């Protein structure tokens, strides 16, 4: 079912993220609405992963609160590097994982779910790869399959961790186009953690700037991000001279 545009999916109120009871970023208040594309940007070690884990509900907040819409379906697209290549996982088996969850832990009836997995692969333009091993694919092909699993989950809110990391320009373009389609067609919200600041801001509606070292946790429209003094302070010398990757 298509979500109503702007419907509140996840909101934070004075959220403090961190570990061992210590916050690493200032309090953060934001709302993610259906159909929105968010870019979470910040230098390495800025707290992006900690924010991601907290928003996903994997670690508790140090303070403040995170509210999720009732029965919110979440999906997470991991960084490619975190998937161990020793596992012999076929493309279709990987996408089938997207159909597992609290109500279908065992996924014993593979046949019944196969059509859904294949439809997701079709949507991601990766159906031809169905029988290949995930570890044998190129970076761009693998990223399309990772997004296909998120499509199979039929999630309302999808978090992508560095989806364009280590991709060449053509593959990066394809993946970003696929992410655009993902939200346009389904009305899902997409939160993309990325180090590609300019690309991220160009495509996103909203942006979240995090920087632990400078004590920054700011959300704004993507277009308005360039005007923020904190953004200029962190990225100013890089913007306009190629990609911003301090």
């Amino acid at each position, binding site marked *: 079912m298509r979500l109503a545009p702007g419907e509140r999916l996840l909101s934070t109120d004075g959220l403090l993220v961190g570990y061992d009871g210590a916050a690493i970023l200032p309090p953060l208040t934001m709302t993610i609405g259906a159909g929105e594309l968010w870019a979470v940007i910040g230098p390495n070690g800025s707290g992006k992963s900690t924010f991601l884990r907290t928003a996903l509900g*994997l670690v508790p907040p140090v303070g403040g609160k995170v509210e999720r819409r009732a029965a919110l379906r979440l999906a997470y697209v991991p960084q490619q590097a975190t998937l*161990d290549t020793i596992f012999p996982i076929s493309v279709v088996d990987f996408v*089938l994982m997207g159909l597992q969850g609290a109500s279908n832990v065992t996924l014993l009836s593979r046949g019944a779910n196969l059509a859904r997995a294949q439809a997701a692969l079709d949507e991601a333009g990766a159906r031809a790869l169905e029988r290949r091993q995930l570890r044998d694919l190129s970076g761009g092909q693998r990223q399309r399959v990772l997004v296909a699993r998120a499509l199979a989950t039929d999630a309302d809110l999808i978090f992508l961790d560095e989806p364009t990391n280590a991709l060449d320009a053509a593959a990066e373009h394809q993946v970003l186009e696929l992410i655009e389609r993902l939200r346009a067609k389904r009305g899902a919200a997409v939160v993309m953690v990325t180090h590609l600041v300019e690309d991220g801001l160009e495509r996103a509606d909203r942006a979240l700037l995090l920087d632990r070292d400078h004590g920054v946790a700011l959300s704004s429209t993507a277009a308005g991000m360039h005007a923020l003094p904190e953004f200029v302070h962190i990225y100013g010398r890089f913007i306009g001279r190629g990609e911003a990757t301090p």
Partner: protein
Amino acid sequence: MSGAGAGPTWAELWANLAIFKDAIWVGGLAGALLGAIGVHVVLRRMVFASSAIAQAAALGVALSFWIAALVDPTGHAAGHAAGPAAHVAPSLLFEPVLWAIAASLLATLVFVANPVHLHLTRESLLGFVFLASGAGAVIVGDKITQEAHDLAAILFGSAVVVQHSDLVLVASATVVLLGGHLVLWRALLFAGYDPMGARVQGMPVRPLNTFLFLSVGLSVALCTRALGALPVFAFSVLPAMTALALTARIGLVFVLATLLGAVSGVGGYMVSFKGDLPVGATQTATAAALLTAALVWRFARARYERRARTSN
């Protein structure tokens, strides 16, 4: 089964099958159970855990002998006299299999624990468990001369016959644990391959991991008591490696590993009988030979495919 001269014949094995059949069954069942579970052990890179748990189980058995002799010397001596082929525990409290399970589960806890606050890695703690258990078993073994043979059998798997109770325990564990793994294999795979993605989708990752670690601990404990630490470690690693070398279809990997484990257990016993060699060593060598053959086949196939690609 050791000694010089011409080896026994198959007719002799058949004629004495009543004596050996429990041991053959245990070898096959343990190989199948550990072979299937071993796929997760190998894929999750916890091979060393299996070795350390098996060693801890051996120490547990040694302690059951020694402490029984210290606490209840009369009952212990009577138990020993009653079971010349295999030690009989003076009471349930000193039942070796219970001590093996307790020691295995303690070692499993070390694996589950996260020692990052101690600035140590999990592997280093497992190294500690392996070394402390190995040294402990040898030291305790030195104190219990009456059961020295039993202890050697547990450490190296040289027992020719097994107690019927061991067969019952290993068979029960195989049915229950293999059944659980059959139902949960995809869930365990997801939890091991992409734990964060699995948690986000609401998979019970922690209970799944607990089931896996408990099933490793229990199966290793029961099989170590029956077969010995060496073949148990071999069965929990080598059949899975062989299956992974033969195919990349994950469902087939589990089926092959189960079958290859059973073949190693039964085949190794046959080799031991025919060659008049120690059982645990031949079961381990059989599993290793199957892996070697699979690796050679894979290497040859990769070479052939490379040549075919370059010639096209």
